[in-house]
């Protein structure tokens, strides 16, 4: 059964509390028990508790699959990019290096690239993915666009990302302020940008002691 077309995945890193419930739950998923496919890291723990969860963005034209010399990475008709197929994967690491979001994991013990498949066993059966179900801050949300628009009136999903000259369209959305006009996130440009917006800045504590 394919994933219901109106069910979508949304990531809102501003909500993330770094608790690791997603990563711990990911390793409970039946298709990759004991292995978490989620990347959850502090951006700069020395200066902030900000953390960012990364699941596979499920690109329309997945770079990982395009660079695979063994044609081991398949995308389902409903848009989910799967873990490499075991009989084909040659553990060359091309996909790991090429993915702009840094998603695939090379499991050397299995000589296999493994990655987030949006809990295909669950989502194709009408359930929510493990990570988005347990996430206590709902930084990871799985539902319809109507649901999220109603619940989060101040933000909206965006699913185009620019890396250099390449624009990638993904199945997974990132939340951005609803008022913004941007058609895509310019990732390479943003890497050099100072964080803006509503964030408790580091100097607040400093200023108390000036």
């Amino acid at each position, binding site marked *: 059964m394919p994933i219901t077309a109106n069910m979508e995945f949304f990531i809102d890193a501003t909500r993330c*509390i770094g*608790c*690791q419930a997603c990563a*711990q739950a990911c390793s409970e998923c039946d298709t990759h028990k004991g292995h978490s496919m989620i990347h959850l890291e502090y951006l700069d723990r*020395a*200066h902030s508790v900000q953390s960012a969860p990364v699941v596979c963005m499920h690109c329309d034209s997945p770079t990982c699959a395009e660079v695979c010399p063994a044609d081991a990475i398949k995308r389902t008709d409903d848009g989910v990019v799967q873990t490499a197929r075991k009989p084909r994967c040659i553990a060359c690491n091309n996909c790991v290096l090429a993915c702009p979001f840094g998603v695939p994991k090379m499991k050397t013990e299995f000589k296999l690239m493994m990655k987030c498949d949006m809990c295909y066993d669950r989502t194709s059966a009408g359930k929510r993915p493990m990570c988005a*179900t347990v996430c206590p801050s709902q930084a990871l949300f799985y539902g319809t666009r109507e649901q999220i628009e109603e619940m989060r*009136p101040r933000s909206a999903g965006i699913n185009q990302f620019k890396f250099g000259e390449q624009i990638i369209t993904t199945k997974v959305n990132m939340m951005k302020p609803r008022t913004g006009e941007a058609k895509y996130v310019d990732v390479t440009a943003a890497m050099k940008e100072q964080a803006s917006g509503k*964030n408790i800045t580091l100097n607040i504590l400093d200023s108390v002691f000036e």
Partner: protein
Amino acid sequence: MSLAPDSGLIQQFGPHAAYSTGARLQTGVEPDKLVDTHCCFCGQQCGIRLKIKDNEVIGFEPREDFPFNQGMLCPKGVKRYLQGSHPDRLLSAYQRDPREGFRPIAYDEAISRVASEITRIQSAFGNDAFAVLTGASLTNEKAYLMGKFARVCLKTANIDYNGRLCMVSAAAGNKKAFGIDRAANPWSDILKAEVVWISGANIAECAPITTNYVWQAREQGAKIIVVDPRITPIARTCDLFLPIKPGRDVALFNGILHLMIENDWLDHRFIDEQTIGFEGVADHVKEWTPRRTAEVTGITERAIRQAAEWWGIAKSSFLLHARGIEHHSHGVQNVLGAINIVLASGRIGRENCGYATITGQGNGQGGREHGQKCDQLPGARDVSNPEHRAYVAKVWGIDPDEIPKAGVDAYEIFRKIYRGEIRGLLSICFNQKVSLPDNNFVTRALEKLEFFVAIDFFLSETAHHADIVLPGSLQEEDEGTTTQIEGRVIKINKAVDSPGDAREDWRVIQDIAGRLGREHGFEFTSSREIFDELRVASRGGIADYSGITYEKIDSQYGVCWPCRSEDDPGTPRLFEPGSWNPIAAGAGPFYFPDGKARFNVASYSPPTEDVDEEYPIILTTGRVVSQYLSGTQTRRIGPLVDQYPEPRVEMHPRLAEKLGIIDGDLTTVSSRRGSLTLRAMVVTTIRPDTIFIPYHWAGRQSANQLTISAQDPISKIPEYKVCAVRVRKETMNDE
């Protein structure tokens, strides 16, 4: 008696970190059954569905139907199943052996030994020479039974519980102001509040599911105010962060009330009609000008004014606090200060207008209601009130005079042990050696006991000192009820049988009563029977459970007490206009004879141990998201251990620089009571005058070697959140 070396005990009993193996790791395993129940950790009691195969919990499914958490879980909930079938699980009774540590003995022999030692100590030194310590992770049924066991079977006044370390300041403050001790509102009232005020609550790590409630309020436009000495994950994106100096919360609340009065941000009608005592409090806060408040709290005057304005003009609001304001030698004053700004706003007892303490322990709410507290009888009754004694005595079938008078708090029990006034101890669900402050003293006291019996599922560090260890039950091995963060009574369902000689805790207690020849009143054959007696015992009390049944809990997804009859659906929101309670009897919504809430003067005093030249830095302690309380369970769950393997000393780079410490350095922290060496974590997310150490670890990693045993004079909560330390880079033994 001296202890066997710790290393031998650890080899034998752990903590060992367990990981998924066997059926837990295989894919496509069909469980024999699915059991809808709740997480065993923390006061939120999230719904969870356990997967059972061959009498083993092999995993979980999110329980999306349970309204409070709708499938959400924190990492502890996700991995909680790994506490079952654990290599460290106690499968038999043990007797301490001076050479070997512990050796297994027959359960029956152990019970006989316990009974004979209780009899010996009580006949030689009096009934009160034997004490009972219990815990707020026990179900309501067990908590009720423990109180009854101490009073009726052992006839000792000395029973207290680990809620003494957790909820008592909030409880005492709530009783003084409202006449009742329970979250005033369901969490759904957070969602549409205009302002959410969070004081001393690391919500993201200690009550993770509550995060989504706060974020949803923000989506609707709420302003979030966070008061904390650290930029916690909930503070990171808040609208106003007040980086308070630890121990100064009441000063801030008084300063806010001062500004509310100055600007007339008051609900006069509510104050006049629904409260008493405002004038006295208004007079008291006159001296708390913004300037003085800023000086004492370490928060800028501008930020204080901003907070007061947002709070003052809001149409709806929810104030949440937790141990951050409660763990102080003036914890009750802090709570009263918080309640004063709620009452002055008039925003309580209505939809989207709320106030609550965030209960910490699994059954932190229910565990503090049914008589395992030294001064309390079931239904939140008072052991020194003759009418209350008479009612409960009737339920128990004894003479009111047979109920012992109030005993002493958990820490005072250790002082009495140290002085030789208490000679014997039964402890369940309470790892004092990790969780009590100044725990070097606790260890010295434990060594003085003539007889110590611990009921446990793992050999806790405290149980290392036991003479007899009896194997009790994990949460999933028994059924019963707990009362979660909102005052909602929920049902814990049995998923597996206890292994080996282990059995349900209430059976262990009844076996002891039976061997003492006092089985009358301890002949329950199920948790349900205990609950039914609890319902009767609580009837007419403030915490009235008489209308709650297991079936009603199932059909309603929990029942909020008070629930006074079988057709009463329960009371999710307290203090609604026109609501009835047995104390006011219609006079008003609050639990006093006149039905009015009380303003209480909340007076500021500095922490018992302030910094000085010798000990110039403030130590504050707390939790991390992957561990629970003293870690008896969570230090045995591999993936949780890996997430935060050992405690670190959090400090600001400015302090670190002064001390020549860089991130990862071994750092020695000393107080007047002890010292420990841990690695430094240098971060700008903490006040430069304060360091933070999480307390979940034992032995030389235990933060409570440093903490002070100063207690609040009313609630007797220890001052975990402030003591004075010195810090230096450790140059010896650095790898």
